[in-house]
């Protein structure tokens, strides 16, 4: 039965990784790429077949589940390794496999001639495996396994060029910052297990809906702890610091892991535990505010970057912020939909940026890019399509998804919230204009850019088309009851649509669009001028958050470590251990003095001992 075999989705990339990793040592690059791309391609085909089958089912029971084996069992708590593919997971699976497949294809050409070609594809396949485990898991613990697995692959791939110190540092930073979030995640899992006695999503939802009453505070605490994990993985302020540095990895990795899939895992997790958030609505404003702060902050930082990949990285942070804003407004569908469209157009932007960097012999500085449209027409056109989608220009997909979020924020949290969110959208237009300047205006690159091959252009073109098409599920406009929401099985609001609010929404949307277009046009003009505005140092350093962390966390920690290494360890710990040794030595030396070697001394002690024993015995017997 097809629906029973959803385990095949993660199994295929795992097989690919195993084949390449264990027996691929002598294979040529083409063979390695064929295995890697083929395994993800097959998984994509299987996922499409499952999607077709899912669409044929009624909206109520669109879920395939399979329990593979029992993993842990301790009294009341049982953890099974089980997968569930419902409509929410399906969205994520499609993003992971579709974008992942195109990125594998692109990498086959992009990474050609790299010494670590096989290692790269093993890690990439392994990443897809863990990502699918994360997505398909039917309980928190298995999700956590996938969660850590993708973190591991992210670490390995950020540090892919491990002979570069900055790459190793960036990988380590990503790992350490994620640990902070994962700490919260793990606590959340434990608390859920203690409170509810289960970690299975279905059981948890059932218990929350009908089970014995649990205090709202406990539910909120679990949700907040899990949100902490999501903040780490999804690079939300202030745990976002690892993502810009993660751009040290190869560009397709940035596209796959740090734009389209892994960093969205936090959003997905929040949707998975939506029953918690619905039970404890007090958590929602926290999520919304964190998302909004991140969205605004990162969009400012993006403007200050010179490195094309760092602009995109901050842009990713900012867009994920918008997804959390959507979740914070209780709009799961809008959040997941922005995840979908963002995955496509940000994947496209990163891949196109990679193509640009390759064409310019590794140049990443925006200040030395200009007029690339004439040299690299295909890449430039697709990049600009991605930018328009990112900015949210009608009718590209970004427009559909972002509009829903802005309106949701306005409706739930009022004008001020909307102003801030909209400000972020205008900033998006501003830094997009800066990216546009790489393709318009005069040439700034000395040398001759070489055009990319078909394996690179084809994924770009596909993604560009989809960044237009991906808006379709978000239709019809101006309602929460979109095709996408229906696919997710989220019931439409019962309240009759308010005509006045509806008019306001339409007017706002039109005004927003006009403002965004105006800002974008102005930004393009500004940045294509002969003398571009210089980057502000404050923005470039992300308002000095790295320095702040250095001063507030790294230095005290290092000082603390030094204190323990220099004072506590050699004096206290070693002192105690060595002290016991020298004490027994000294005692031994003292008692060794009793042994003189003189026979008569021994004889005296013998006799004295005998007399003492006799005296004691006599005394005890009461004789004297």
């Amino acid at each position, binding site marked *: 039965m097809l629906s029973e075999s959803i385990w095949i989705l993660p199994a295929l990339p795992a097989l690919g990784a195993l084949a390449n990793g264990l027996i691929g040592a002598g294979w040529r690059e083409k063979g390695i790429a064929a295995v890697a791309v083929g395994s993800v391609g097959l998984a994509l085909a299987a996922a499409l077949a499952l999607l077709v089958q899912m669409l044929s089912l009624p909206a109520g029971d669109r879920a395939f589940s399979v329990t593979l084996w029992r993993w842990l069992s301790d009294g009341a708590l049982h953890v099974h390794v089980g997968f569930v593919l419902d409509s929410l997971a399906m969205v994520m699976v499609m993003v992971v496999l579709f974008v992942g497949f195109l990125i594998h294809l692109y990498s086959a050409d992009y990474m050609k001639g790299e010494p670590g070609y096989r290692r790269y594809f093993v890690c990439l396949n392994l990443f897809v495996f863990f990502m699918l485990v994360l997505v398909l898991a039917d309980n928190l613990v298995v999700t956590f396994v996938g969660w850590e697995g993708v973190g591991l692959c992210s670490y390995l791939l950020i540090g892919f060029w491990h002979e570069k110190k900055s790459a190793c540092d960036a990988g380590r930073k990503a790992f350490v910052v994620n640990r902070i979030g994962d700490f919260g995640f793990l606590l959340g899992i434990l608390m859920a297990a203690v409170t509810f006695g289960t970690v299975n999503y279905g059981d948890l939802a059932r218990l929350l809906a009908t089970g014995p009453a649990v205090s709202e505070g406990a539910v909120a605490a679990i949700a907040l702890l899990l949100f902490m994990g999501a903040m780490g993985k999804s690079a939300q302020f202030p745990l976002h610091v690892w993502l810009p540095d993660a751009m040290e990895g190869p560009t397709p990795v940035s596209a796959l892991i740090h734009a389209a899939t892994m960093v969205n895992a936090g959003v997905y997790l929040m949707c998975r535990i939506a029953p918690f958030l619905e039970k404890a609505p007090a958590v929602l404003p926290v999520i919304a505010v964190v998302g909004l702060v991140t969205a605004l902050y990162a969009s400012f930082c993006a403007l200050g970057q010179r490195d094309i990949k760092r602009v995109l990285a901050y842009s990713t942070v900012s867009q994920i912020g918008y997804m959390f804003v959507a979740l914070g407004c209780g709009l799961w569908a809008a959040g997941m939909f922005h995840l979908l469209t963002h995955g496509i157009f940000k994947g496209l932007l990163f891949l196109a940026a990679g193509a640009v960097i390759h064409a310019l012999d590794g140049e990443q500085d925006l200040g030395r890019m200009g007029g690339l449209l004439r040299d690299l027409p295909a890449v430039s056109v697709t990049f600009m399509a991605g930018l328009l989608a990112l900015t949210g220009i009608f009718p590209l997909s970004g427009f559909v998804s972002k509009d829903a979020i802005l309106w949701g924020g306005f409706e739930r949290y009022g004008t001020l919230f909307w102003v801030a969110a909209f400000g972020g959208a205008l900033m998006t237009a501003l830094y997009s204009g800066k990216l546009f300047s790489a393709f318009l205006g005069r040439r700034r690159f000395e040398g001759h850019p070489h055009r990319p091959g078909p394996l690179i252009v084809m994924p770009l073109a596909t993604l560009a088309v989809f960044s237009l098409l991906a808006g379709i599920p978000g239709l019809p406009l101006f309602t929460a009851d979109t095709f996408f929401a229906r696919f997710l099985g989220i019931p439409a609001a019962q309240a009759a649509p308010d005509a006045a609010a509806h008019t306001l929404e339409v007017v706002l949307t039109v005004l927003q669009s006009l403002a965004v277009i105006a800002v974008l046009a102005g930004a393009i003009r500004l940045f294509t001028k002969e003398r571009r505005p210089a980057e502000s140092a404050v923005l470039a350093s992300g308002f000095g958050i790295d320095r702040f962390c250095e001063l507030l966390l790294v230095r005290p920690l290092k000082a603390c470590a030094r204190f323990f290494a220099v004072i506590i360890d050699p004096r206290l710990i070693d002192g105690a251990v060595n002290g016991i040794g020298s004490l027994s030595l000294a005692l031994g030396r003292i*008692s*060794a003095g009793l*042994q003189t*070697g*003189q*026979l*008569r001394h021994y004889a*005296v002690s013998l006799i004295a001992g005998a007399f003492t024993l006799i005296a004691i015995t006599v005394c005890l017997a009461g004789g004297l």
Partner: protein
Amino acid sequence: MSLEHVVGLGIVLFAIGAAGFFLRSNTVVLLLCIEVMLNAVNLILAGFSRYLHGAEGQVYIFMIMTVAAAEAAVGLAIIVALYRLLKTLDMSRINFLKG
């Protein structure tokens, strides 16, 4: 000849043997002192055996005499070997077994 005389003589003999053992340093003399002490004990055992009209004390005397004979044989052999090795029988200079 009462029990007190016998035990008193035994104690005196034992004290002489013990004092000799503590004060002299010639190894052969030390062996003699051990014999004196053992025989002091034998004497006391014999005295008590007679006083109590029992045979156990006399049995012990024979066992002690056997052990003393064996001890004298082994001890003299050790003394000979010791002398060959060290060319001395002065016990105060034979003090190699110490910590």
